[in-house]
């Protein structure tokens, strides 16, 4: 075992940088988009780096990676990178190879785009492919939504960039809480206690401690080694199920999708913003979730029609007011829109600045 390597960390990135990047590292002057999906970065030296951005699924196979490598070998001297939104970027210093690369990419069936004022790739979580608490699938909804918004991926026709993200439950390992449009899987019913299994499978104190709202307590009948749930206090997070598999929180019919809108992380003009609840519930409708797809398109189209130049979704909504947002998107306002969790007061209107 003496030769066993540990704690070496990842390889140094230097090994993977194209020569033009090494030569101009820290000395880039400006960039331009030659067309949607094709970036040109120009160094102080005058050197140019071209990046061709391509959308792909996040869930991929080694076969796909090898196909992508074949393209990078043929056109990019073997250099490529991935973006924070699961896009692939082919990196070239020879502009004359771009046309051939684009043809080959199209032949593979991959879309070029995701730059500037587009809907870039949707960042998302695992969903039914791998996770134990999801209310919805992830990859399937993303595929259905991107099929519908495809035209916006390869163009710059929106007032600003629109970042869409999906998390398949409210633990949000995809951290969708600052996205222009967030697709969120929600459970809507409290876990069902399986007393017989719980007795064998779960540690009662850790199960009780796992609940963020204190809704779980020991079974009042001391002869039953189990717990009971105060259902009105449950906010369906699934934390208890992570600790105790005898508390499944899934309901095939009542689970579904919520849409939150208006978040961003950039500081441009306005500070970063959280996404806020727009549509509290849409049915969980595989394989193509048509209600979710249609609702997102509707919000996106109303934004594109109503927003000023350079306005992100959240900036548009804040300017027109949320009551107007609900009106133009034809979303009925319901109790679920009103915050009643920990920091609710900040969201109540205390001014006469409202519209009819």
């Amino acid at each position, binding site marked *: 075992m003496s030769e*066993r390597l*540990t704690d070496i*960390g*990842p390889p140094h*990135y230097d*090994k993977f940088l194209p020569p033009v*990047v090494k030569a101009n590292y*820290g000395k*880039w002057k*400006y*960039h331009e*988009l030659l067309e949607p999906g094709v970036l040109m*970065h120009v160094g102080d030296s005058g050197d140019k780096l071209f*990046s061709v951005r391509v*959308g792909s699924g996040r*869930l991929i*196979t*080694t076969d*796909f*990676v*090898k196909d*992508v*490598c074949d393209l*990078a070998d043929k056109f990019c001297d073997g*250099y*490529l*990178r991935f*973006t924070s939104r699961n896009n692939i970027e082919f990196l070239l210093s020879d502009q004359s190879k771009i046309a051939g690369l684009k043809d080959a990419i199209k032949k593979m069936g*991959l*879309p070029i785009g995701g730059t*500037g*004022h587009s809907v870039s790739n949707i960042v998302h979580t695992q*969903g*039914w*492919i*791998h996770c134990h608490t*999801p209310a919805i699938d992830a990859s*399937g909804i993303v*595929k259905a939504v991107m099929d519908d918004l495809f035209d916006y991926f390869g163009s*710059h026709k929106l007032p600003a*960039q629109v970042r869409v993200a999906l998390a398949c439950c*409210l*633990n*949000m390992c995809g*951290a969708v809480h*600052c996205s222009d449009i967030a697709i969120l899987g929600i459970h809507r019913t409290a876990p069902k206690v399986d007393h017989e299994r719980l007795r064998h499978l779960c540690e009662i104190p850790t199960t009780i*401690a*796992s609940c963020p709202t204190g809704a779980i307590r020991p079974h009042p009948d001391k002869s039953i080694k189990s717990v009971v749930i105060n259902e009105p206090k449950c906010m369906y997070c699934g934390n208890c*199920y992570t600790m105790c*598999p005898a508390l499944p929180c899934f309901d*095939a019919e009542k*689970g579904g999708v919520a849409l939150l809108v208006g978040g961003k992380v950039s*500081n*441009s*003009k306005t500070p*970063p913003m959280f996404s806020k609840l727009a549509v509290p519930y849409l049915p969980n409708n*595989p394989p*193509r979730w048509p209600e979710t797809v249609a609702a997102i398109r509707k919000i996106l189209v109303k934004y594109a029609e109503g927003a000023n130049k*350079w306005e992100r979704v959240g900036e548009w909504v804040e300017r027109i007011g949320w009551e107007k947002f609900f009106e133009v998107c034809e979303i009925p306002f319901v109790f679920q829109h009103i915050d009643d*969790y920990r920091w609710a007061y900040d969201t109540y209107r205390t001014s006469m600045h409202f519209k009819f």
Partner: protein
Amino acid sequence: MHKTPLLDQLESGPWPSFITDLKRVAGRKKSAADLLGVLERSYKDKITHWKHGGIVGVLGYGSGIIGRYIDIPEEFPGVEHFHTVRVNQPSGWFYTTKALRELCEIWDEHGSSLLNMHGSTGDIIFLGTTTPELEPCFAKLTAKGWDLGGSGSAFRSPSCCVGQARCEWACFDTMEACYELTQHMQFELHRPSYPYKYKLKLSGCPNDCVAAVARADCSVIGVWKDDIRIDQAAVKAYAGGELKPRGGATVYPKLDVKADVTDLCPTYCMSYDGKTLKIDNKNCNHCMHCISLMPQALRPGTETGAAFLLGSHAPILEGAQMSWVIVPFMPMEAPFDELKEIIVNIAEWWSEHGKNRERVGELMLRLGMRAFFQGVGLEPPAQTVRTPRANPFFFWHQEDFDAEAAGRKYIKL
């Protein structure tokens, strides 16, 4: 191969189909075939069929592997065990095809051949293998220079934007800082010893392309202290329409420098009279709007570094938080000692006072900012708040009275 009539409906449409991709591998991998079977079942049942994992891992590590089992193994034995392997990504997600092919070869031999490029934390996610394959897979990875990323209550694999490798706005070397911190924290990354997860993301400028402010407890965001560099001739070229707005990232043909840039400046610190763009840099709040719209005319200054913000996490438990400013500016030169010290000191304070599964941002709210600043040995800068308190419930400590006795004043008269 299982019949998958529901999933088959995801093979049409212009966006790349993960189902078509998975089916290619399903022909040679039983695990991929059964995974499609399980997914089809979930599409029919509208619930998940995965169970939370037990303790699995490689020798000596407490993180990097996430155990995963199916609840109907008799029907889908190929995915009875389907553990995740997190492989720590290189800074900036740059690769050579040689390196990617080596990774593929390892994963074809020891796992399902399915993966994510990349997961939310930033790691390469190898999706699905069995317990006996873990150790040999790990040995092959390390032999090629790769290591596992973080999971559980550990320091998670840091990630960063492309930074100075390809961006003229990067105010520090995000990729080197990411690499340095990853190496510095190897022990904490592989051996979970914190109250909960602890994440670090680094963005080179306030555009924050890796969403550091929202997705990492420790958010490092590049900023400059001096003046925005202006090329007045290029400003004129934007005004005249020779240069396209936002470097061509829009369909708008021509920039109206007043209406699109200076009138939208959040601090009204700019003006343009048709000849000269003027910026009152002392009042600039570094929002990046003007720079983003005129990349050939404007660049961040040259006295650059980063702000350190702390506390963000997704909604569990108290509601989502964004990180808030702790250190408004620190120079960011390798080997980034100041950043390392802050991150380690904060982890120590949090480990001492935090409850199980309490993120550091939640602890700060529970104990208060004074306890935090004093606990980690930092002075509070005015930039840490958006606004001071409006309520009159502020507290006085003996040390305040002592400081007054020694001459502290609350306004200079």
